[in-house]
């Protein structure tokens, strides 16, 4: 025990010196951000210790904890985040479970706490299951940033939202509405029943559908394909059989939309139902080109990882504390402001169609 405490104290001392040095070094470059200083000063009064002028610390250790280690989408996000960490002299790594079940991330968080990472970036499989360990982490001064899928609000400092949930939910309904001329039955093909992000989007979709212009559109079913190929196939088949006059399907999950597109493209339903949702250009290219799918959307996952990485570093360096109104610089993406409940929004989703899909490769 004694030895360990001594070692820790020594480590703390070196860290402190390193910080002091870093502060001294970057103090001169800080002068270019005068405006940021002023604004930061205002919000600083509210949030105890935010110092917007603090430079990004060198040698920070960031850990990305995706929903599932083999999810291609999260892989893109995490890799971009790790690469961004390299830009400001930090190191990043990705660890995570092989299945996306609610509690699978807990043991990883505990390990990361023991490793004394400076920040944990997490895409939560379940908003509450990860709460306990994340609070432990914050107690030990490890910064917690949720991305992609949020945790409960008091279990993290920031949530990097790929686009506001509201924007995603509403825009998918708007796009589909235009495609089917605001008439007919529609269904949603989601991932799992308890995925936070999916459920938030679906709630906004339902809300958007209440507007008078959608009075002839009727949401008949929310189906869950569990992000598994076979199940998503079966759900799509079931939807088409159960609702033969279905006009449109929204699948806000990359696995679901690819499976649905593959199924519809080869079935007798091709052309009878409009499929829209969230997918990556690479997986959807074939279906856009063979006219199974006219358009779909997604934000740029690389930018999401990049922004998350910078946000975590800003937290760990004391530039921000996660309070509403604080601002930080995210490298090439420019300045971002923290919104309500610690949310930072990446921007508008991109719509991909035949015309622009070949410009993207992810």
């Amino acid at each position, binding site marked *: 025990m004694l030895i360990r405490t001594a070692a820790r104290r020594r480590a703390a001392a070196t860290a402190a010196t390193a910080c002091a040095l870093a502060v001294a070094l970057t103090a001169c470059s800080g002068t270019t951000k005068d405006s940021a200083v002023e604004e930061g000063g205002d919000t600083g009064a509210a949030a105890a210790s935010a110092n917007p002028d603090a430079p990004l610390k060198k040698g920070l250790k960031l850990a990305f904890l995706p929903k599932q280690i083999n999810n291609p989408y999260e892989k893109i996000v995490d890799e971009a985040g790790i690469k961004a960490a390299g830009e400001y002299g930090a190191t990043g790594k990705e660890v995570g479970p092989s299945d996306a079940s609610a509690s699978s991330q807990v043991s990883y968080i505990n390990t990361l706490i023991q490793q004394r990472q400076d920040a944990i970036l997490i895409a939560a499989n379940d908003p509450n299951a990860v709460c306990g360990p994340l609070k432990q982490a914050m107690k030990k001064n490890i910064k917690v940033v949720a991305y992609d899928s949020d945790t409960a609000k008091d279990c993290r400092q920031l949530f990097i939202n790929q686009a506001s949930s509201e924007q995603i939910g509403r825009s998918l309904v708007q796009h589909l509405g235009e495609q089917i001329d605001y008439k007919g039955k529609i269904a949603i093909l989601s991932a799992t*029943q308890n995925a936070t992000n999916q459920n938030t989007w679906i709630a906004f979709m339902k809300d958007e559908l209440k507007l008078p212009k959608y009075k002839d559109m009727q949401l008949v079913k929310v189906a869950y394909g569990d992000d598994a190929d076979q199940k998503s196939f*079966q759900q799509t088949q*079931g939807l088409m*059989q*159960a609702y033969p006059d279905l006009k449109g399907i929204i699948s806000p999950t990359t696995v679901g939309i*690819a499976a649905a597109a*593959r199924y519809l493209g080869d079935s007798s339903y091709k052309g009878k139902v409009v499929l829209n949702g969230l997918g*990556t250009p*690479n997986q959807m290219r*074939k279906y856009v080109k063979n006219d199974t799918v006219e358009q779909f959307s997604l934000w740029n996952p690389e930018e999401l990882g990049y922004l998350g990485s910078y946000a975590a570093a800003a937290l760990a360096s004391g530039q921000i504390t996660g309070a509403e109104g604080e601002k930080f610089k995210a490298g090439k993406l420019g300045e971002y402001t923290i919104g309500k409940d610690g949310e930072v929004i990446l921007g508008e989703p991109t719509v991909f169609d035949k015309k622009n899909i070949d410009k993207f490769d992810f």
Partner: protein
Amino acid sequence: MTTLLDKPPTDTGEGRSARSLVDAVFRAREISIAGALALLILFTWISNPRFLDDQGVKDLLLNASILVLLAVGQSVVVVTRNIDLSVGSVVGLSAFACGKFVAGTDHGVLTVLLLGAALGVTCGLVSGALVSFGRVPALVVTLGMLYIIQGLDYWWAQGEQISAGDVPDPILSLGSGGVLGVPWLPLIALVLLAATAYFLRSYRSGRELYAIGSNPEAARLAGVPIRRRILGAYAFSGAVAGFAGALWLARFGTVVADNAHGWELTVVSAVVVGGVAITGGTGTVWGAALGALLLTTIGSALIVLKVDAFWQGAITGALLLAAISVDRIVSLRMTAALRKRSARHGNGA
């Protein structure tokens, strides 16, 4: 041994009727699954006629094909009183490997199928060697293999995804196209099923697999090359799983590392529901295939009937328990019946 020698040749009549009793019991078993399946389909069809339109039938067959294949492979292992839990990850590895192999090339269908099967055989041989020559319990070996193969797959894939756009069209059309309106996948499954059924029933080595499963000690004394047969069973199960992986690629187009994650349990369920006793020695691949068809059809029917997805798991579980209870009752009854027969025969002599 002496009793065997003592038996007069006239005994065959008695022996045949015992055999036909056993046959009848198991045919009854398959008929009952087929009946359940027919009832389910009928009920769903009445409440929604579209369930059995052209597209509907095609979908049901396509959905079941891969599971049927895997169930056939698994049955061959299970009748020897072993189990192969690595099939899910073999499918995953094979699907990804095949995807990687064909991505952006114009490799033919046959090459890909052979590659998948070859990969599967390799995995099966490793499991089989450990079980048969290493004498490690199959449950542990194949569970270990499940994780090893999965780990290998994850390490290799690193989250990479093969998209349908990268896969050559002939391979994709294997997964969706067909001949005379019948899709390829169910045809392939049926051919393999029939061939395996014929082998298990009519070939000496096929019968030996059952002998090993019903009484390993007796099989050894009767001169059955147990190790070789078990190794063979695993190689076959592996090959089928690898082959199914290639078909997975053809069917779904998009593959990542964790395809068929967790399927091993579905496959074992299908096999058990289909009347292949987990304790070995009894059951047919036809039954296993019907079990697979029943499980996937339940999945589709529930959606069409607009029943909550939650019930699918519960119903599968109930079916499993029912199947195992039936197995137990039937085997108790049959032992009693056979004992009575032989007692009668003994008295007569």
